[in-house]
């Protein structure tokens, strides 16, 4: 009995650790190289992922690329950037569609490489990936956006 309780406690601890954002990790917002946008304010980024702003300045529709639930970028998106939960986020997006507005296009990809590759192939896509994944080959041909004028690694960069 004692053993079972110790096992349950360990699983809960692991789950807590899994869903908690790594306080040391940093994240980057990446877009297609053809995208004219080079710099975003953090609130604009938040606005894009909240579905408030669904078009790029060239009037092409924004495709949000998100990582699968449980991944660090998704937890960062939910916990730090949007400050919401996956369920709440899903309901807010459904509300937009219920309102008859242009639905938010969201693509869930199961790795940073896939996210990068997707952004590479879709000019209107934007994704948040870990800055560590920028070194992957799949992330070679895409553009990293400045957030509030800062690139990842620079002092005052805020996506972390």
């Amino acid at each position, binding site marked *: 009995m004692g053993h079972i309780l110790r096992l349950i406690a360990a699983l809960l601890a692991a789950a807590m650790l899994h869903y908690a954002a790594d306080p040391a990790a940093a994240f980057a917002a990446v877009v297609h190289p053809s995208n004219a946008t080079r710099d975003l304010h953090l609130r604009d980024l938040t606005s894009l992922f909240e579905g408030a702003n669904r078009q790029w300045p060239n009037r092409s529709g924004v495709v949000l690329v998100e990582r699968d639930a449980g991944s660090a970028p998704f937890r960062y998106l939910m916990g730090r950037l949007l400050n919401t939960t996956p369920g709440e986020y899903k309901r807010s997006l459904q509300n937009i569609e219920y309102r008859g507005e242009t639905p938010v296009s969201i693509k869930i*990809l199961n790795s940073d490489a896939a996210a990068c590759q997707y952004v590479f192939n879709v000019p209107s896509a934007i994704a948040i990936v870990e800055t560590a994944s920028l070194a992957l080959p799949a992330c070679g041909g895409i553009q990293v956006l400045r957030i509030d004028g800062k690139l990842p690694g620079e002092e005052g960069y805020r996506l972390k």
Partner: protein
Amino acid sequence: MKLWFRRVFVGAMVLGAILGSLLGTRGLNQALISTRDLYRVDTAGSQMESDLEYETQESRRAFVYALAVTDPNDQLPYVAAARGASRRVGETLNRLRMLGVPEISADVETFERTWNKYDQARDQIMARILEGNSAAAMRVEFERGQPAFARALESLHALKAGLEVRGRADSVRVNSTLWRSIGGLAAFVLSTLLILGLLIKANRSRRQALESLHATNAALDAAREMERERASILELVSTRAALSRTLEKIVALASRCHLEAGAAVWTGNAGEAHFHVAANLPQGLSEALKLHPPPSSGPDGWEEFRGYSGKLAAAFGFEASPAKELREASGERIGMLQMFAPAGRAVDWQATLDQMAQLAAVAIENSLLYERLAFQAQHDTLTGLPNRLLFQDRVQQASRVALRHGKKAAVIWLDLDKYKQINDTLGHRVGDEVLCEVARRLQRCLRQSDSVARVGGDEFTVLAPELAQPEDAERVAATILSAFTPPFQLASHQTNLTASLGISMFPEHGEDPITLLRNADLAMYSAKRAGGGTFRMFRSALSDSMQRQVLLEQELKTALEHNELRLEYQPLLDRNGRLDGVEALLRWNNPEAGQVSPMEFIPIAEETGLISSIGEWVTQTACRNAARWLQLGYDVPLIAVNVSALQFTDGKFTALVERILRECGLPPSRLELEITETALMDNLEGVVEQIELLRRLGVRFAIDDFGTGYSSLSHLQNLPVDIVKIDRSFIKDLQPGAVGCTTLVRGIIALAHNLGLQVVAEGVETAEQLALLNTLGCDLNQGFFLHRPMSVEALEELLRAKRPRTEPAEDLSESELIPSASPA
């Protein structure tokens, strides 16, 4: 083929090969380049085509699959596949561009351009699909994708067509360059083959030349080896090595020149030849050759023998060379040489045979020469008997044997009686015949164990070994004497000859050969003095007198050379005491024998033949002195010189006297020759003629010692003399009252005067004798009472004192002298 032509030909071939190889290589290189280009272009075209087809399929598959799934995670692999195909197309285009084929560069650019448009369209399609907008994707596909793809396909076909054109051009170029290269290579191969042929031929020639050179070197080596062998053989010959050893070395040359060949040598002339040595022959053949009797002495002897040896060799599976006769320089056959080799071998005999034969002939001839020299050194060349040297050696050996066996040995000295007369009267040839006949008779009458030797002119010695007593030696001597009993038949003459023998016994009369010979010689003198034709055993009592005799004989031989002879002169005075002549008297003063009387040495001189040379010296000296006196202006009296009858025997005395008179420049009328009555009467016939000749020249002759011989007074009128010298034995007893002697002398004087002869009395020693002789009418007197014999100087003094002359030889007319011999 001439050398220059060959060089030009080879040069042309080399040039052709170089050009051919260059052309061939260049053509081949061009063909390879063209082939490579063709391959590259074809490959690139094929690759392009397959890439395009693959991309089409990929694109289509990505399009369908992307449409079929909604999850972008599932769509992305298809998108990546499409992009990969597109990237490979781009890489292929780059490779195609890098080929540098100008003919297709425009097609490549066109295709790239159309392909890029299709690529952009596909990106848009894929983006729509990924966005999840399938309718938009299909729309773009229809509107842009498919047209772009069709254009890309068209441009691809154009590119392929360009590649095919280029490929055909490359094929043509490859073909032409291939043909050129084949031509060049053919030329190269042909030239190379020709050069190779020439090289092979040159190599063969070089090999043949080398083989020839090796053969020449081998021949030279063999010749040098042969020369060394020749030198060593000639050294053996010169060092007088044993003939067998030398011949063994010579016949061994056969196997040196021809490995399996052998040779054999026979030495000697046909009839006497015998197998000497063989080398490298089967034992049986060698033995068979050795056992065969020598070839007959006939002219075909050697030929028959060659035939026999050839058959013998054939029986042993051998073949015989032509036999080579060995001859010495005089042409005399001295042997035969033959080579043998296993039958069937082609052996060139001649050169080897000639060389071996030459060496063998030299070796045998040299050996024969040494044998002859050795024989001559120990033998008398005339009779073939051993000489003194060998005889002494045999005496030495016999004395040792006798000593060992307690026996005796006899040495017999034999001297022919009156041999000189035979020699002088009948000539040396007859004399030699006599000696040879004596040698034969001695050899016949003696035992096998006895030895005969010739030790001097007519002197022989006999060694009779192993005798029991001296009487045995006397029997041997008697046997020898009996061998002289039969008359000697000499050419046209027949004569009886006797010998005087002296015997000395070992060991009684001497223990060494020299003593034994000397004592035998002395004993022989004793026999000679006994009248010859007998033998005497040596006795010690004989020794002194005989030894003096031998000494005088030996010393007399050198008396002239040693100036031991001199002349004294005894004057002859007429009844008035005036010097009318002088008699030259011979004196001999020997360091060992002292003053020797002419009575003692003249017989020896006559017996040994020395009288001729001594007589010549006396005549010459006397005439020279007389001529000198004439030159000095003295009134030179008649010079009387004694002559031995033996001087007349060789028939040359007349010429000798004539020559001496001419050389000395003495008128013949001043010379008087005296010959004893005995000598004159013994050889009356031979002497008279020569006396007549000399008398015609003006030389006067006197009979010396008249009255002692056996001549008849009746002969006196026939003797060609001018003077009669009455022997001193008559004068010695002449004195007043000695009627018989006085009557005899008176008779001789009267007889001589009646015959017109002058009379000289010898041995006048008293005044009474002189007075009586003057009374009896003797013309000239000679004797101690008047003058003793005096030296030349004393006589000259006498001549000067008695008849000095103021004008030298003024009364000598040219007609008195014998004219000089004409140069002719």
